[in-house]
């Protein structure tokens, strides 16, 4: 199960055991904990649970990865990789958070300076905020 996620915030859930092929767009938050082959566009936040295996591109406001992604992640906001995350592909985002243990095979392109957007600078694990 996806860790530390309140399922009430996710009106759309593709649970364990589901297999999805094709292009999907959502206008609300989405949690995926099954398998998906194709591109997904989410206006809100996309959470990929520990059991998720997504082969394809992601375009969302925020992306939280706990499972496996093979493809490009594009987010206008925060990309968060949990300790169980495994991402093979390029990440393009404004903010990024990577927990110890996460595997990232690919490069990260930061779209804008967080300061310009009035957001706090990203912190590495173990770093104190000032």
């Amino acid at each position, binding site marked *: 199960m996806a860790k530390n996620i309140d399922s*009430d915030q996710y*009106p*759309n859930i593709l649970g*364990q055991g589901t297999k999805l092929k*094709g292009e*999907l767009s959502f206008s609300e938050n989405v949690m995926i904990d099954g398998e998906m082959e194709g591109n997904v566009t989410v206006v809100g936040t996309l959470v990929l649970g520990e059991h998720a295996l997504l082969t394809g591109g992601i375009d969302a406001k925020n992306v939280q990865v706990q499972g496996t992604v093979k493809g490009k992640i594009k987010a206008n906001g925060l990309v968060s990789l949990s300790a169980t995350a495994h991402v093979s592909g390029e990440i393009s985002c404004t903010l990024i958070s990577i927990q110890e243990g996460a595997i990232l095979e690919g490069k990260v392109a930061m779209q804008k300076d967080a300061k310009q957007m009035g957001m706090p600078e990203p912190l590495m694990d173990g770093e104190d905020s000032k």
Partner: protein
Amino acid sequence: MYLFLVDLRSVTDERYRYWERLIPELHAHHLMGEIREVESNAALVQVVAESLKKARYKTIVAVGDDAFLAALAGATLEAGTALGYVPLGERCAFGWAADLSATPGMVGAKLAGRKLKTFDLFRIGRWYVVDGLHIGYLRQYVENFRPTEGMSLGKSWQRLKASALFWQQTEKFTVELQLGEAELRATVSSLSILNAARLGSRCIPGGQVSPQDGLLSVLLLNPGSAATWQKLLQDPGKLFASPERMSHLRLKECVVRLAQALPVWVDGQEVQMGREFGVRVIASAFRLIV
């Protein structure tokens, strides 16, 4: 003055006597225009067409169950006639969810109050649907653990335990959903497509299935297992609302494909449906006095 349509299929002798007890109340509120009894959807359509042609009644009231209200809503779709609903019987989940009842002393005042709300309607094959469609576990759940008017689902621990054990015993089946350009495949114990459901608090993230959001609420329950049952014991607050146990999507339309023909319940009634059928929402389809 209202036109009252009584569905003789769902209003049995005993319920008919109950309905007759309401009639003086309707007269007292000066609502009673005409009572017509129908025994089929074809007869319903004919009576509605006659009424609309004469433009004699500003409101048509369904006296029966959810399926009858859905058929009436479908028949008045283009005209946009204001509807009333006197839910009589056991298959009135939509009516109860809309806070309607057939309790003497309340029906006349509510209908006379004319507080109108707009609701969505589903089209599934040739059927119009106000409450929802069930295949598999939840279909049998509704049959075996049928709610009664005024009783909220699942407050009883025994009820929860019985329903979860029943879930484990339900046979699984494979379903494909065509979602626009995507196809979803899953092996499940239950498929439900909901408009308004009191089951929502147990199954749906957030517990909400709104009949006013212009969306279908598609719920797939994974096959039950001893492991999931143990987890339910630890967290019974939400029977199914977890990605381990279910999938939930909010859509405008989809096509359902089943590996084999299965019994399908639409608004509490078993109907004949093929292995493939389309479902779409008609947003803000009808106005109902609530």
